[in-house]
């Protein structure tokens, strides 16, 4: 049972006194033997009083652990769960209001709902496509302008001397763009940093990440990504596109914007977490599909990342949204490119088409591809490990916004400096092609009529570099150039991911992979001079790109389809699949995927597909939180307000119990009510006394709850007078009368499955006579995870 001793060793570097908390009786534990204590109105107030810090310390004096009094502080690490994340309410609350509304609704009404779901999906697709189009055009314009200016400058100074000035100009221009993006992100909306895929993954997993689907986030994200790509960082715009799609979906489906304070009185039925989350998965799919021109890949991405709640109709609707988004992007890009009506323009990233004579591959190449997959897995694991340490450092030391902006600026400047030095010292000169594939050919010290090959890789937006690596003629790059490029770009990309700028990691990964893949192809061709036809460098660049990307993000199904769709040929389906599979196997042996690392470092209570493998011996009794703060069916307003405003226990769900009149009987579970519902009730002053005095008072409807969604006011903003505190509130009508419960001996995997499959937020643990003895929430389940030394437990922390 060394597992468990190990378990405690990580939690605080040898500070064992604090660890006794795991083993010592918890303060509240002492109350457990009598969970049936009175829950009458006055009793509750008393009990809540006991949780205040004063009482806590009183109790603690009797125990041997003096540290318990004040919260212990440890440096941030990956083994924490943050309190700021809550679950989404995916489960329907079937209270009386809901039933009433359903009864009132005609069959026609339901049909209209179904139609409006389709309309919303269409709108999501259109808007996502438009945003993708906007980002694409802006990046092209700004980057074009920047490279033009620098190119002219370099040309001028190559002749007269003073190229270090060009270097400074390049760095300054980069910094200027990144400054705008960095300030937007660091000061206005930190959640918009990074690619956004981890956040969307969490959202689809059922975690409510604060502010992740707000309009402000969208604006910051779009501007941020334009700035960071135009600023020459080693980033792509595909990840942010997925986030943008999700925000669009969350916004459109609500028919209003809380930020703009505009309510279009549309789609009011969809103002619930259940519906919103379905639409967000459609939005994410639309984002993928716009980013890569891969509608099926988009659907599969949603399926892979958020598939616990899935049905055929939803899949079909999501597919519709993806298709519409690709179509919209194609349509508007065709107008922009001056070929209106040409809908064959693929997504944001255009890998170009592989010519038919180079697509062939032979059986003897498959082992080679598999080796490349393993290499991709290794490099991906290295990338992730470096990025992991860097991110921990950033969270611990670079947490102030101004420092984050400075860091981003430094990265931008160094990127320019390194690129310039590489180009400056490169001796790889290639003749200019007849059709001018190179957007901004730099001559520098090459002979007239030739260009610097290193510059096509560095002096370009990353996407164009990927394309030229895939499609340029064999022989347009020296092996030396490619090797140096891979090495530099690997570290640049690794350093860049996790900065406070909106930026994706897809394109940099593809670029690194394409570079070393092409290198492999060139080397293979040189080893076998007799038949160099099969070792087409473009083909190996594609396989390398797939391997590297798979090694970093560890997606499988959706990534295969995305790659196949983005390159527009199914021929490479098998090699790409094999490569991604092997990259994942090899990479997982060393390190998790990049997105999972970032989810962990954000301390998100993320539920994986299955409970940890060796957890069957844990029962609900050990997992649950206890004791539970309950309410009576008819509860005093003062009690409710006190419980809700207690900052130390920020509970969101409260079991409702019914007290049999003679007080000896234990209180039995009869329902569950959420904080948000209580707040709405308090706001509308739905008190028993008032209802009696004012008969004309309008009855509260489900609409009132929806209007408050999703930003329920905090309890502090609700004023309850002293007189009102004495009133009573009847929760019968509003609570969920049939919450899910489990017996206390249920094993952890069973609880986990229930949670994951039904999207629960609270699971009541009841004993044989239906008394509440505990409550399982997401954080209780997410804290168990299989570490290197067996089952480990994460700690809760305030972040």
């Amino acid at each position, binding site marked *: *049972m060394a*597992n*468990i001793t190990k378990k*405690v060793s990580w939690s605080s570097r040898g500070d064992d006194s604090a660890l006794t908390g*795991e*083993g010592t*009786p*918890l303060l*509240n*534990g002492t109350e*457990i*033997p009598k969970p049936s204590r009175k829950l009458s109105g006055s009793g509750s107030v008393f009990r809540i009083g006991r949780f205040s810090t004063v009482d806590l310390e009183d109790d603690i004096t009797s125990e041997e652990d003096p540290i318990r009094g004040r*919260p*212990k*502080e*440890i*440096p*941030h690490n990956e083994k*924490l769960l943050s309190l700021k994340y809550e679950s989404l309410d995916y489960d329907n609350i079937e209270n009386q209001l809901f039933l009433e509304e359903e009864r009132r609704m005609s069959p026609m009404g339901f049909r209209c709902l179904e139609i409006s779901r389709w309309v919303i999906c269409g709108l999501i697709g259109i808007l996502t496509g438009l945003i993708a189009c906007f980002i694409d055009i802006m990046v092209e314009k700004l980057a074009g302008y920047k490279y033009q200016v620098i190119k002219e400058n370099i040309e001028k100074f190559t*002749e007269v*001397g003073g*190229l*270090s000035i060009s*270097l*400074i100009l390049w*760095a300054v221009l980069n910094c200027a763009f990144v400054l705008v993006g960095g300030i937007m992100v660091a000061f206005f909306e930190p959640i918009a940093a990074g690619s956004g895929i981890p956040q969307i993954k969490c959202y689809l997993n059922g975690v409510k990440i604060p502010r992740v689907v707000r309009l402000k986030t969208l604006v910051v994200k779009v501007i941020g990504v334009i700035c960071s790509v135009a600023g020459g960082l080693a980033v792509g715009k595909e990840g942010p596109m997925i986030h943008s799609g999700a925000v669009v979906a969350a916004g459109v489906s609500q028919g209003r914007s809380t930020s703009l304070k505009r309510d279009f009185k549309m789609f009011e039925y969809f103002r619930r977490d259940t519906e919103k989350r379905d639409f967000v998965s459609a939005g994410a799919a639309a984002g993928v599909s716009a980013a890569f021109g891969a509608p099926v890949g988009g659907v599969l991405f949603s399926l892979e990342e958020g598939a616990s709640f899935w049905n055929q109709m939803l899949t079909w609707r999501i597919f519709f949204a993806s298709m519409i988004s690709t179509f919209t992007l194609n349509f508007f890009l065709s107008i922009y490119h001056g070929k209106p009506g040409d809908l064959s323009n693929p997504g944001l990233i255009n890998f170009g088409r592989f010519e038919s004579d180079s697509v062939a591959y032979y059986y003897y190449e498959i082992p080679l591809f598999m080796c490349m997959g393993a290499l991709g897995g290794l490099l991906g694991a290295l990338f992730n490990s470096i990025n992991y340490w860097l991110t921990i*450092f950033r969270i*611990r*030391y*670079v*947490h102030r916004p101004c*420092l984050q902006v400075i*860091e981003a600026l*430094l*990265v931008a400047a*160094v990127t320019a*400096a390194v690129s*310039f*030095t590489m180009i*400056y*010292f490169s001796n790889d000169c290639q003749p200019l092609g007849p059709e001018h594939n190179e957007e901004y050919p730099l001559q*520098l*010290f*090459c*002979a*007239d*009529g030739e260009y610097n090959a290193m510059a096509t890789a560095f002096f370009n937006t990353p996407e164009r570099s990927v394309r030229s690596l895939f499609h340029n003629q064999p022989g347009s790059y020296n092996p030396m150039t490619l090797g140096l490029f891979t090495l530099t770009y690997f570290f640049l990309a690794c350093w860049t991911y996790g900065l406070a700028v909106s930026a994706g990691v897809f394109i940099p990964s593809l670029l690194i992979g394409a570079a070393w893949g092409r290198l492999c192809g060139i080397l293979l061709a040189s080893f076998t001079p007799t038949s160099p036809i099969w070792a087409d460098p473009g083909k190996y660049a594609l396989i390398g790109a797939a391997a590297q990307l798979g090694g970093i993000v560890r997606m499988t199904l959706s990534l295969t389809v995305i790659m196949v769709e983005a390159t527009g040929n199914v021929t490479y389906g098998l090699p790409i699949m094999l490569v991604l599979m092997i990259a994942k196997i090899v990479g997982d042996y060393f390190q998790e995927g990049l997105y999972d690392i970032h989810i962990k470092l954000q301390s998100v209570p993320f539920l994986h597909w299955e409970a940890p493998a060796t957890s069957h*011996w*844990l029962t609900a*009794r*050990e997992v*649950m*939180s*206890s004791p539970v703060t309950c309410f009576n069916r008819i509860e005093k307003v003062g009690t409710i307000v006190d419980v809700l405003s207690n900052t130390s226990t920020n509970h969101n769900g409260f079991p409702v119990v019914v007290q049999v009149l003679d007080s000896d009987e234990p209180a039995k579970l009869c329902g569950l009510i959420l904080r948000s519902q209580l707040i709405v009730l308090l706001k509308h002053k739905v008190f028993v006394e008032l209802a009696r005095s004012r008969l004309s008072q309008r009855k509260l409807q489900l609409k009132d709850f929806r209007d408050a969604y999703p930003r329920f006011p905090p309890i502090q903003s609700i004023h309850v007078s002293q007189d009102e505190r004495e009133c009573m509130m009847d929760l019968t009508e509003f609570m969920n009368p049939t919450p899910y419960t489990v017996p206390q001996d249920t094993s952890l995997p069973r609880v986990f499955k229930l949670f994951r499959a039904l999207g629960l937020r609270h699971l009541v643990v009841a004993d044989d006579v239906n008394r509440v003895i505990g409550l399982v929430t997401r*954080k209780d389940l997410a804290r168990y995870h299989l570490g290197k030394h067996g*089952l480990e*437990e994460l*700690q809760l*922390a*305030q972040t």
Partner: protein
Amino acid sequence: MLPYNLYLFFVFVAIDVPSLKCGDVAHLSASESADKLEAVPSLSTAAVSSPVPAVDTGFSFSLLSSFPEDLEVSDYCSDLLHIFGQRYVAYVNCLVPAARPVKVCQSCYSTYGSVVEIYKNISSDQMGPGNVTCRDSLLRSDRLMLVYQLYSNLESLWEDSNCAQCVTGDLESLTNDTLYFMSTLNQTLTCFEKYQQGNHTELCKNCKSAYGTLNVLYSQMEKNSTLCIDIEDAMNMTRRLWSKNFNCSFPREENVPVIAVSSFMLFLPIIFYLSSFLHSEQKKRKLIHPRRAKSNTSLMNIQDKLS
């Protein structure tokens, strides 16, 4: 229409050559249908190929020593064919010596013009003397379509070389741009020749202006897309002379400032990270102790119980 034609076809094939009166009609309709029936080439070409005899009968089969007159190519057409052959040969004779260094446009545009002219005649609809048109009989009476193939080869050569951009529309003379470029080129080359002996740095210094003018002119023409292969090739050769032979490219002589500036920039992040490591206070997380059920069920104790 189609079935009728087909019908005629079969009639024609079945009756074969001796049907005299209707031969003309049959011929016409047959070749017409050859156009329309491209979907079934084997049938149509098989049927139509027989009426075309070789003009030079020297190597014709003894069995088919000659076709009846109606099917023979008229004298007018064979004359045209002859002229075409002569001009074709003239053009090719002109092209081959102009292959390296490329001068295909400037030296051969007039001969190309004559080939185009004769081909125009052959392919025109207009009736020649004797009310015959040679288009059908010369150009598309057989599967090989030799005349057409030969001509289209030349045409694609002409297009690939972009000569049309250096020659006036009527193929009479070179454009003024081209002539101007050639004269500028000549100036540069004479300059090169003048300083070729001795030190190349001298050449680089003295010919720089001439070479620069040429370069500017070239990029201007590139923008206007008035380049043809002659100019491109001449420019390529000049550039190679300039860069490789005379070594007049810009030297890489600013290593020190570039290295200094970039290492300064590389140095900044190190300072940044060090200072933030030393001066920024480390972010701590407050641990929250969850409310759990009674102690004897905690992990530790379960383990004890199990063991």
